């Protein structure tokens, strides 16, 4: 049974091409995913991300619980509304999911986790929460719209109640706050995203989602599908769960070391294994690849290096760069002249540091 977001009919009326994504019937594009990609890089685009799972955590020991559950340290969250990106690991240090956690107060935090991993995430969180007496409450009553691009914030702010505008304009990166939207609808606005552009991710009660979408459309925000979302996040150097990492992969091998907080005395799930891996040194590393020739790098293609074979994780044509880029996991060490096997043809590629694109511009050396 395919699930539908409350915006499903709206997408269809806009001429969206729909696909199954993790059990959800979602728009892949509304005509051209490349045009949608450029709209986000140059102006403002919006994505229906209501398929993502919102989970509220309540209880006296919620902060203590999250110190244990997450590999990043929630003690970094001190001000109300502050957000943190983290991995949730299993006992073997494999990645169950990546997520964003928002701080309301010490008895209330909010998680936003991936759609495709919803069932296993909820089961894992509930299992771990018992010992801390924390209540785990899914919030299917919320929809979520991501508005992204250099003009995204202005367009959203223009729709807010006047008393909220200045406060939301001043919202720092990775901070969220409540505000009143069109017709007084209650919004939870976070200055976060998955595109490498500035913008907001807005959580809205389901019954107001269509009205918010229509208001954004009228304000000149261009609908964008999952196709553009994928090329935007790849250019921005952001991992996709299930493609770039999963339970079989250590965060050290997925360039997620920056999210691992090995702070003194905090016993989080997976920590022992992670420390052992770090001490032993990792065998595989995740790198960026650029193909300067014609052709497209794609998931699953073989990568040939001086130290043996690796493979492409996420790969695509990158519309901002007009050439193909990819993430690859390859054996650690100096890789030498690297080639990718594209349908039997060995094509030279460059190993680069990513992100490939930031704030609308190609990064240096790409």
């Amino acid at each position, binding site marked *: 049974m395919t699930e539908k977001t409350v915006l499903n009919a709206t997408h269809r009326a806009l001429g969206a091409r729909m696909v199954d994504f993790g059990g959800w019937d979602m728009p*892949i594009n509304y005509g*051209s995913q490349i045009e949608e990609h450029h709209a986000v890089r140059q102006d403002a685009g919006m994505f229906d991300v209501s398929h993502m799972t919102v989970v509220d955590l309540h209880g006296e020991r919620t902060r203590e619980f999250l110190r244990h559950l997450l590999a990043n340290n929630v003690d970094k969250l001190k001000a109300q509304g502050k957000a943190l990106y983290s991995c949730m690991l299993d006992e073997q240090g494999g990645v169950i999911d990546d997520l964003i956690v928002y701080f309301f107060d010490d008895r209330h935090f909010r998680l936003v986790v991936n759609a495709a991993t919803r069932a296993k995430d909820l089961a894992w969180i509930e299992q771990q929460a018992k010992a801390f007496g924390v209540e785990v409450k899914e919030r299917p009553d919320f929809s979520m719209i991501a508005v992204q691009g250099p003009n995204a914030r202005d367009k959203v702010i223009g729709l807010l109640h006047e008393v909220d505008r200045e406060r939301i304009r001043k919202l720092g990166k990775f901070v969220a706050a409540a505000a009143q939207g069109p017709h007084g609808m209650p919004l939870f606005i976070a200055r976060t995203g998955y595109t490498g552009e500035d913008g907001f991710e807005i959580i809205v009660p389901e019954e107001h989602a269509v009205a918010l979408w229509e208001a954004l459309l009228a304000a000149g925000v261009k609908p964008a599908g999952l196709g553009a979302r994928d090329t935007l996040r790849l250019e921005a150097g952001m991992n996709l769960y299930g493609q770039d990492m999963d339970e079989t992969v250590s965060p050290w091998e997925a360039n997620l070391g920056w999210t691992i907080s090995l702070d003194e005395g905090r016993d989080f799930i997976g920590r022992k294994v992670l420390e052992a891996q770090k001490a032993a040194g990792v065998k595989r590393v995740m790198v960026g690849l650029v193909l300067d020739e*014609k*052709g497209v790098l794609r998931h699953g293609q073989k990568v040939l290096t001086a130290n043996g074979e690796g493979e492409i994780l996420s790969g695509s*044509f990158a519309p901002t760069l007009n050439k193909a880029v990819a993430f690859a996991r390859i054996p650690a060490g100096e890789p030498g002249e690297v080639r990718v096997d594209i349908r039997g043809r060995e094509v030279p590629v460059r190993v680069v540091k990513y992100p490939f694109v930031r704030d609308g511009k190609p990064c240096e050396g790409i």
Partner: protein
Amino acid sequence: MSEIPGDLKFLKSHEWARAEDNGNVRVGISDHAQGQLGDVVYVELPEIGASVQVGHGVATVESVKAASDIYTPVSGEIVEVNEALADSPETINEDAYGEGWLFVVKPSDRAELGELLDADAYAEQLENEDH
């Protein structure tokens, strides 16, 4: 979806063939196929003079989403390829049955054209795929 031109013949794999007045056969992909592929970003075309066999892959159309092998609907010799696609592959999305053509074959056996689906049969195949 745009109308399927009545003078075209089709392979089940969504390539179209147009018999031209000089006896050659122009080949492209259907409007349905370009819609399925999404934005085309790169096209690999055969060499002029290459000898091709019906049903064999002779070209590749790559979209952002996927790479797709293109089969020739007739055997023969490649006499023309659409060089303009190198700079503007999106022409395939914009005009699949016209400016977005891929290559022209000088057929060695015109009887092969009779094996292809006509426009109505192809439209029916698309109907069935939708259900």
